[in-house]
Every structure is written in C-alpha cells, then in structure tokens.
C-alpha cells in the first residue's frame, strides 16, 4: 500500500490517519484551484525570500554609496536601481520581506484570535455580556483604523513592535463582528443543545463547537485583510511611526521615494510593486482556502 493509498483510504484505522487523510484531501482541493495555487506560490516565495535574504541580496541593504544615488533600474549591479542614499533597492526589498512577514505573522496570530474569542463569547452568552462587548467593538469600529493605530503608536512610541501592537488592537473588531454573527446562527442549533445536555462547560462549547463553525469565515477575512495590514504597516512606516530608518521596510521605502516620485519613479514604485504582489497573493489564497476548509465539499 503506497502512502497515497493510505491517505485516501475511505475507512481510516486511526485518528492520525483520518486527520492526515483530511489534510491530503484539502490539499487536493486547493491544488485544483489555479488562482489559489498562484497565491500560495507568491506566499511561498515571500517565505523563501525572507528566510534567505542575506544570501539572495546582492548588496548590504543599509550600505550607503552617495556616488551611486538614484540610479535607474537596469544599472549593472543594481537591477532595480538605487535610492537617494545610493542603497540597492532590490536588496532593501528582499530584506524588507522579513519585516513584512513578521508584521503579518504577528497580526495574524493576535487580532483574529482576539476577535474570535470576543465575538463568540458575546454571541454565545447574549444579554449584557453581548451588549458590553459589542458596544466596545462599535467604539473601536467607529474610529478610522489608521487614525486609531496612529494614536496608539503616538502613545506607545514609534517602532515596529508598537506598530504591530497598534495594528492588532485595531484589526480585531471586524473579526468579532463576523464571529458573533456566525455564533448567533449556530447557538440555538440542536447539536449545541445536545452537547450542553452532555454537561459540557461554556468554554468547551465555545472553543470546541462554536469556534469551528466561525473559523472559515474568519480565516477568509484574515487573508483578505492581510493586504490591508501590509498597507497599514506601510502607512505607519510612511508616516514615520512604524519601522525606523535605516531599517528597510517597504512602507518606509515608499515614503522615502515620495520626494522623487516624478523624476526618479522607481524609488517608490519598486517597494509598491512588492506590496501589491504580496497583497494579491494573500487575496488569491484566501479565496481558495474557503473551499478547502469546508469538509462538506470533500470527497467529490
């Protein structure tokens, strides 16, 4: 019996085989969707670039060379040109992938989890718990996100860690809303009544039974929001409140290129293209994940 047959066995013998089999079927479903695969390839490239930046980058990203400043793309040795300090833009983008990835990873594990917990708790208990948590959510939603993040960074002080914290603290309300709406549709379902009748505690019901029902819509929201998170991180960097020079963060690079936008367009355009491609990757992947995460669409 080959590994594939073992994975595809419709009657798995153990929990592990069942779980791996499900994962394999999920992968097959994802592979059938060319757009999602394109997204996955882009995200994979981002991971590789971030991991191997020191080996891939032709130059030191913060080494200045004022004789070579503002060289156009295609110059020998500087294929994407140089910025106003003569630093190689390609190297800076490659290193910048690390910061972008760190920001995405940190926001992706904090904001959705916080939103998911707040939304499911509010939806499951209802009453005053719901009222308090949802008014809190309303207050956060009523502020434009960038402005709120700006205020938080202004209080906490500029820096990449504080920017991540500010983004996470402003990104959770939409997840809470989505999770609450999903919770309201399932909280009166018979299968929730059944597990309550089995004597399950509220945390167990919420985490084990309500959250799995909310997860797909939240995950899809997360991948769709990742583009926005990159842009807000870039925006904070652009405003000088995120990553600090000479760190090579993409938003900061666009900000630095703004002064030369008309004469030396590549300084701002190259990191902008990087943001665009990565955002696109997340959007494409998000769409494909929806199909994978629903076990009801399996087995066809």
């Amino acid at each position, binding site marked *: 019996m080959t590994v594939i047959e073992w994975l595809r066995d*419709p*009657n*798995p013998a153990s*929990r592990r*085989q*069942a779980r791996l*089999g499900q994962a394999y079927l999920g992968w097959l479903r994802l592979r059938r969707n060319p757009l999602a695969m394109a997204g996955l390839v882009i995200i994979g490239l981002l991971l590789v670039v971030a991991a191997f930046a020191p080996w891939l980058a032709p130059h030191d990203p913060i080494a200045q060379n004022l004789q070579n400043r503002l060289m156009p793309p295609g110059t020998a040795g500087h294929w994407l040109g140089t910025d106003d300090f003569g630093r190689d833009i390609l190297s800076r983008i490659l290193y910048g992938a690390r910061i972008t990835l760190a920001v995405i990873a940190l926001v992706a594990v904090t904001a959705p989890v916080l939103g998911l917990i707040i939304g499911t708790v509010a939806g499951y208990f209802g009453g005053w718990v719901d009222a308090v948590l949802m008014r809190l959510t309303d207050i956060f939603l009523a502020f434009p996100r960038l402005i709120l993040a700006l205020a938080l960074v202004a209080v906490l002080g500029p820096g990449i860690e504080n920017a991540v914290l500010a983004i996470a603290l402003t990104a959770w309300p939409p997840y809470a809303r989505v999770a609450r709406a999903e919770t309201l549709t399932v909280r009166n*379902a*018979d*299968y929730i*009544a*059944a*597990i309550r*009748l*089995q*004597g*399950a*505690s509220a945390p*167990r019901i919420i985490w*084990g*039974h309500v959250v*799995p*029902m909310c997860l797909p819509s939240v995950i899809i929201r997360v991948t769709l929001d990742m583009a926005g998170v990159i842009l807000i991180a870039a925006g904070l960097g652009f405003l000088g409140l995120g990553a600090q020079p000479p760190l090579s963060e993409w938003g900061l690079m666009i900000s630095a290129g703004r002064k030369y936008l008309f004469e030396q367009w590549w300084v701002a355009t190259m990191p902008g293209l990087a943001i665009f491609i990565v955002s696109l990757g997340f959007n494409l992947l998000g769409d494909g994940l929806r199909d994978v995460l629903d*076990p*009801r669409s*399996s*087995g066809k």
Partner: protein
Amino acid sequence: MQNGRADMGLIDIENLSVVFPGGVRAVEGVSLSVGARESYGLVGESGSGKSTILRAICGLAPVSSGSIRIGGEVLRRDRRFAARVQMVFQDPYASLHPRHTLDRTLSEPLAIHGIGDADRRVVQALEQVGLPTSFRFRYPHQLSGGQRQRVAIARALMLEPEILLLDEPTSALDASVQAEVLNLLARLRAERGLTFLMVSHDLAVVDHMCDRVLVMQQGRAVEELPRAALAAAQMQTAYARSLFEASADRML
C-alpha cells in the same frame, strides 16, 4: 412493567407550565409520572406542547411553575444529570455537529465526564447501533438520515443514562428507515433497561413503542391511555378518538 402511581415514578412532573418570553403559553398544568423502565408516549398535533415538555426537562425551555423530579430529586442540571438523562433530537440533519467526525461526536461526552478508554467505547457504541466501525472517521454529511439518527442515539447512550428523551426520533425519516430506528430503540431499551419518554404525533409509532400514552391538545393533558386501551380504541374523550381515527389505518 410497573404502572406506577404519581408519587413513585422515575420521572415525576407536577402541574408543569411553560410560558415563553412574549407570553406564549406552551404547556399549562400538565402532570405525568413515568415509572422506571417504562416507555411513556406524548402524542398530540403540532403545537400541542409535547416537545416543550421534553425541552423543559432538559432546561432548554423556561419552567414558569410546577415541578420536575427525576428519581425523587428536584432537578439540578449538572453533569450528574447529564449522566442520567439524555435526549435524541427530532432532526438528525441538525443534531450532529457538521464539522466533527463521528469519532469526535461520540468521544466528546466521554472527554467531558473524564471517562477513559474512548477508542474501545466509540467502536462499541457504533456496533451497538448497527453502524459499521469503518464509519468512525466520517462526517455527518457522508451519512444518510437513518444512519445519522443512529449516531445521535449512540451519542445519547455514551454516558449510559437511565432515561432517554425521544423527540419525534423518526419523523424526519423515510417510512422504511423509521421502522429500523424504532426497532433499534426497542432493542436498546430491552438490553439496557432504559426508561423512555417519547414524543410523537404519530399514534402508530406510539402504539408500537409505548406502554402508556398521554394525549395532549393546546398545551393541556387531555387523556392518559394504557396500551391496552389504545389498542382496543377505548378512548374517553372525543379529541383522543379523533386523533386515533386519523392514524388508525396505519396501525393495523
């Protein structure tokens, strides 16, 4: 089969009233008593409050007056209650978690109550309700309605309760599958000495399954009939008679 008096049943319900928020009076002053190992049926048309009585026992409907006692104790819905009383829901398409495998659904009650040996117990439970053990890691959407209801019955029996509340357990199923599920329930009751409190709008089902029947109309108890009286069509009230006549052709 004991035909217990009102003061010595396993389930004692006295003057139960259920009023939903908004003033809908679903159940009004219903009393009934079910002896240990008895099978008791609640019949009536839709909206007669029969399912609400089951939901009130489980704490899923608000009790506005009256009392419910299980084994002489006033009800406290804790884990001990869960181990004594379980329910099988009407719609097997809605009562199983769509994202949990059967294995997860059946082992969850064991995990809640800290009972070990889950692997063996899950396999045993599947065998007991007549499902192949190879179904263990399937999802509910991969099963038919009858198979799902078998899983729901297996889940209700995981904690080895003495009382099973059955809320129209076959009304969502095909006629042929209905009989299979009813036979399964009858067999499990005989094997395990279970007490059934069963709701149905179908007198044929009740006649097949129950020792005694309470006919309900608009939230009130109309008439209680032992099986012999049901079989001999000796109803006292006009409503019970009309209900009987409506389904008599299928009982023969």
